[in-house]
């Protein structure tokens, strides 16, 4: 049991709080590294947040005055190195880390700069899909930018030649790590574009930590990739985040094998495709030809069907023309004229006319042409007979009949008047003497009245 005088006098709260503050005083001007979370800006310009590592958390505070001085304001999720002291807020009973300086740690610094670079490039459209160059379907040669030693180059060659046995490969050895790496990569990219030995560039590295991959996050390399006229494929390994090179590159692969498959088609596939296409073309052509053959045979059949009709039509037309021609022909016209003559012939020579008409009617049953020709011949004969008949009549009617018995008639050659007396003419006068057959032209020699 404690006696009252021995009993410890209790601390007042303030006393204890001050005691705690005093105890914490050595924890001043110290450096604290941790990730920021719960960043809040207070109304008086101060910031309050928490700093944590995997296991622990401590509240932190930046006074407005210090906040104005610090070069970088912490952001959630970022790791910083804070300088400051630990203080105990007696009023609220809380411990806080009061930071007066904020700095990135080495990696944090790089990451922050990287984020800034990404923002800038993105603002310039460097990551835009439409900016990216198209990979050639089948390059003449592939440029490989990588470390000359190591598995990467071996894997790439292997993959490319496995897919396309005689594909050209141009290797540009580059530093992929360390301070000189960005310049080395950028220069090699420039050379690729100048030399134009290849149609596509593979930028490869076997992965690594953030620091090891640093070169591929530099603006120098990013700009060199953006400036390349040849498409750039990145294959930087799968152990870290996407690099800026991945973002600005034209195609992004993880492994050398993937990149090899991306830049070079499989020759066997190409050949198979070509064969398949060849077969399709053959099939297409065969179908086309057979279609045409079918169409032609249709047409031929139609022609064969139409031909007799066409021939018949033409034959009919020719027949019509022939009959028209016959109707209009001089033969027919002569025939018509002969018709008139035949009338006269009938009148003069009824028996002959009757015979002619008989034969005409008999002929009428025969074919038109021969009928016509025969009729015509008949008519010619008839006409000739008619003319003969007329000649006989002329002879019969002419005074010449008397002459046959040895008389003659003498006419004046100019006037045609018959000389009945020697006084009708005189010497030197031309006369015509008609005899039983023919005439004599004569000159009067002597006149004896």
């Amino acid at each position: 049991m404690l006696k009252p005088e021995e009993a410890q006098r209790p601390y007042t709260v303030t006393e204890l709080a001050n005691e705690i503050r005093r105890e914490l005083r050595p924890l001043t001007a110290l450096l604290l590294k941790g990730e920021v979370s719960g960043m809040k800006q207070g109304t008086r310009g101060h910031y309050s947040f928490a700093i944590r590592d995997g296991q622990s958390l401590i509240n932190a505070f930046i006074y407005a005055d210090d906040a104005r001085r610090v070069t970088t304001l912490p952001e959630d999720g970022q790791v910083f190195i804070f300088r400051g002291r630990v203080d105990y807020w007696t009023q609220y009973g809380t411990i806080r880390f009061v930071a007066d300086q904020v700095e990135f740690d080495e990696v944090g610094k790089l990451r922050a700069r990287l984020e800034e670079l990404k923002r800038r490039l993105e603002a310039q459209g460097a990551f835009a899909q439409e900016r990216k160059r198209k990979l050639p379907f089948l390059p003449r040669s592939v440029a490989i930018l990588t470390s000359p030693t190591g598995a990467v180059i071996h894997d790439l060659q292997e993959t490319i030649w496995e897919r396309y046995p005689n594909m050209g490969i141009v290797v540009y050895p580059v530093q992929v790590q360390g301070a000189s790496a960005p310049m080395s990569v950028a220069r090699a990219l420039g050379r690729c574009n100048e030399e134009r030995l290849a149609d596509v560039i593979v930028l490869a590295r076997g992965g690594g930590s953030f620091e090891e991959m640093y070169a591929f996050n530099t603006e120098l390399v990013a700009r060199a990739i953006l400036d390349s006229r040849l498409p750039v494929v990145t294959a930087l390994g799968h152990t870290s985040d996407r690099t800026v090179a991945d973002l600005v590159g034209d195609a992004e692969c993880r492994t050398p094998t993937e990149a090899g498959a991306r830049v070079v088609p499989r020759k066997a596939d190409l050949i198979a495709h070509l064969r398949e296409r060849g077969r399709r073309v053959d099939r297409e052509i065969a179908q086309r030809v057979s279609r045409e053959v079918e169409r032609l045979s249709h047409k031929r059949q139609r022609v064969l069907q139409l031909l007799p009709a066409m021939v018949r039509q033409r034959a009919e037309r020719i027949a019509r023309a022939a009959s028209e021609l016959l109707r209009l022909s001089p033969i027919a016209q002569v025939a018509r004229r002969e018709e008139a003559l035949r009338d006269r012939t009938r009148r003069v020579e009824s028996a002959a006319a009757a015979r002619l008409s008989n034969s005409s009617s008999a002929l009428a049953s025969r074919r038109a042409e021969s009928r016509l020709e025969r009729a015509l011949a008949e008519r010619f004969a008839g006409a000739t007979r008619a003319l003969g008949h007329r000649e006989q009549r002329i002879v019969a009617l002419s005074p010449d009949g008397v002459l046959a018995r040895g008389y003659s008639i003498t006419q004046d050659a100019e006037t045609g008047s018959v000389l009945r007396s020697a006084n009708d003419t005189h010497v030197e006068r031309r006369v015509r003497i008609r005899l039983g057959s023919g005439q004599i032209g004569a000159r009067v020699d002597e006149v004896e009245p």
Partner: protein
Amino acid sequence: MSQDLTYEQALEKLDEQLKLLEDGNLSLEAALKAVDDARVYLKICTERLEAARKKIEVRGESEATTE
């Protein structure tokens, strides 16, 4: 002028001359002239007829050769 006559015209003229002669009212001179004229027309008719016959024969031949 008489050479320009067609067969029909010549035939008509021939018939005219024959009719004149048949009527028998002609003077001897006129009868002789009519006989002379009739002979001329007869000749023309015969020539025309002969020419037509020849024409038709030639035509028939050429038709045969073109077929």
